């Protein structure tokens, strides 16, 4: 009897983390059937979904770590915008190498600032990164004069987001590589275990001799670095750096992670789930467009589907 109860509880536990895969398949099949004639299943459309989703997915991988540590990063969208601008500017004046360095340094600097403010000045990350969202946007508008800065260097744009490799968009390779690295860090390294412990119970983690501030600090740096990479990919894909790039992405990124089974309160999550969550949002967006919905209708439908998905996954949770 207790064995049955045990497996039942086990099922309930895993339900929350696995529902995303079932949900993804259901949504995909739904559109595949209803939108068969609109070309939903065409290779072109599938690759398009991949392209549109990859950048969100990359940020969602990092967000999984942030949320799992019990923190949040709201600055990712505007950091992506800022990095697209700094990269484009540096390429324009100093060439590709400095462009890439500038983009990555942008992420590093913002991450260090977020980390120091949160762990040294004890400002909650919600506020730190909310403020940083404004600051990063302000800086990118200022240094770009709110103009777009075009990038003509093909090697850069091909490598970062525009080109194909073996017939597959390079963006998808980026997503897969970041996904694998993220998954391995999260599941297999000491740092990953520490992230989960800090998010699970910060007091117990400290009492177990873990430097909780150090963990939070590095998690925030990783998040900003991935946001910067996302900005560089936006810049490569659109051949331009512009402060609006990535605007509002923080919500899609957090939604993707939560849909994927990562707890908003820390201590639990999966990297692969977050990627699937991002893909699911991409599929929904794409499907709604193909269905001919107007943008306002898309917003309403997307919001409703996300609420529904999270509500279903929460329903299997152990209430005790």
């Amino acid at each position, binding site marked *: 009897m207790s064995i049955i109860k045990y497996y039942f509880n086990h099922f309930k536990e895993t339900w929350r983390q696995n529902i995303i895969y079932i949900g993804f398949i259901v949504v995909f099949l739904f559109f595949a059937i209803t939108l068969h004639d609109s070309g939903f299943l065409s290779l072109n459309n599938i690759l398009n979904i991949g392209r549109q989703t990859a950048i969100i997915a990359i940020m969602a991988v990092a967000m999984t770590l942030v949320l799992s540590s019990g923190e949040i990063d709201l600055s990712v969208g505007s950091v992506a915008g800022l990095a697209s601008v700094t990269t484009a500017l540096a390429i324009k004046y100093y060439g590709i190498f400095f462009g890439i360095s500038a983009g990555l340094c942008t992420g590093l600097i913002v991450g260090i600032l977020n980390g120091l403010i949160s762990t040294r000045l004890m400002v909650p990350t919600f506020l730190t990164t909310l403020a940083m969202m404004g600051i990063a946007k302000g800086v990118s508008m200022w240094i770009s004069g709110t103009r777009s800065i075009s990038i003509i260097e093909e090697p850069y744009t091909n490598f970062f987001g525009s080109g194909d490799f073996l017939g597959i968009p390079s963006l998808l390779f980026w997503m897969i590589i970041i996904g694998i690295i993220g998954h391995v860090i999260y599941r297999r390294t000491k740092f990953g275990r520490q992230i989960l412990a800090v998010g699970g119970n910060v*007091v*117990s983690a400290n009492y177990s001799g873990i430097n909780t501030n150090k963990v939070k600090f590095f998690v925030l740096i990783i998040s900003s670095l991935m946001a910067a990479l996302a900005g560089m990919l936006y810049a490569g894909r659109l051949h331009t750096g512009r402060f609006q790039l990535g605007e509002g992405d923080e919500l899609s990124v957090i939604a993707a992670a939560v849909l994927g089974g990562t707890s908003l309160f820390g201590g639990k999550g999966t990297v692969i789930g977050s990627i699937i969550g991002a893909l699911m949002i991409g599929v929904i967006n794409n499907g709604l467009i193909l269905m001919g919905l107007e943008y306002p209708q898309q917003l309403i439908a997307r919001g409703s589907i996300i609420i529904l998905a999270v509500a279903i996954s929460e329903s299997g949770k152990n209430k005790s």
Partner: protein
Amino acid sequence: MRDVNSLSSAVKMQNISKSFGGIKALDNVDISFQYHEIHALLGENGAGKSTILKILRGIHSFSNGKVLIDNNPISNLTPQNAKEYGIGMIFQEMSLVQSLTVAQNIYLGNEPKTKLGFIDDILMIKKSETIFKSMGININPKEKLNNLTTGQQQLTEIAKALSQNAKILILDEPTSALTTSEVKILFNLLIKLKSEGKCIIYVSHRMEEIFQISDKITVLRDGKLINTKKINEYNLQTLISDIMGKETKNLSDFRKKTNKKSKIILKVRNVSSLNKGGNYNFDLYKGEVLGIAGLLGSGRSRIARLLYGLETKGSGNIIFKNNNIDIKNTIDSNKYKIALVPEDRRLQGLILNHSIKSNIELPNLNNYTKYSFVSDNDSIEDTKKVIADLNIKTLDKNNLVSSLSGGNQQKVVIGKWKISDPEILILDEATAGIDIGSKGEVLDLVNSLAQEGKSIIFISSELTELLAISDRIAIVGNGQIKKIISKNDLIENKNNNVSIEQQLQFLIQTSNMNEALI
């Protein structure tokens, strides 16, 4: 006798019994609290005091017997109507909202309204002032609660009860966090309230206070009422013997170690806490169990917090293996192989919604990590070992810790530190709230760790287990170690009229006596 008293009887509990899953928490208890009286309720942890208080507050029902308030039988006591019957509880851990003002706290959920239905702040402040005036206490009702001292907060809590016209006031360990002068103010107030006719039920482990303030004492032991006597019919010795019982519990189990002096591993010299003061001096030998005894608020947990880097040292030296060390945080303490089984296993010791394996590997991640990758095989092996060695009752190593019983949870905490192979293991109230069986297992485990050569600091408020496990016992009072006695001395110099526990209790009580109060 009873007839005379019943004229002013506030609460009568007749033949009250209460069981929790077959264990009798209260067994046919007969007790009567009068107006114009401070009535102390005494007993060891688990004697049934808090069950009585919870019945009076309407939290627990009772299976048998009757409760009468003002001589009227009350059948359905609930937390809501307990207030209407005039019962006011002053909580041990404050139930006030720190961010609200004193007046807002006093009238929380009970706010006076203006004619328009808005909260009448002016009236609320005026009424609060009146209450404080009647209490003879000067607290500004407009002050935010977090600007008050602990003592003032306690007084606010009493004011809150009085604002709801409480006639019967219950105070549970009200002085454990108060300074001497705050205790004086509280006691003057209690005497004043008594003279105004309130019935005051007073629970405390500090017997000096009991003798100072109460009129009558009721002693409970193992859910049974032992005695109700006037204060002048008791002295410290007879009171202790009523509380603890005549016979020593399993003296045969007491660990009689040879106690041959091994080398000193840790010297603590004039160590104080930066924020909380104190002045600690003691040595810890390799392979010994040093018990730490003391009353709540005596500063016994501070020793653990200082040695584990949870509290900043103000002055003094900690000398570990002949080196002066500075423990600034838990990373330092882990570096020196000092481990702590903390007071609150659920909030400090464990990550409840993680698996047994995750919890056990947490302080030991370095052992399993190569090139920053964690080897799950090693960690699983250790987890299995802990589950088997410590007899943790679970079906699977991946089960969540929250699904375990309290005793098994505590074994996980001890197990994770056992794997880390510490030199010094500090346990703070390690057996609190776990069942008897697990308690024995935990003590056995501590014993075997000491035999392996680990030095143990064992903080506990349970004297029986302290005596059972310790080689020496340090008695803490007012932030200092007042005395360190070896158990062998205690056993050899045993006075035949009193048990060893009683002797120890006597030492603890007398070393906590505060000259200013006597």
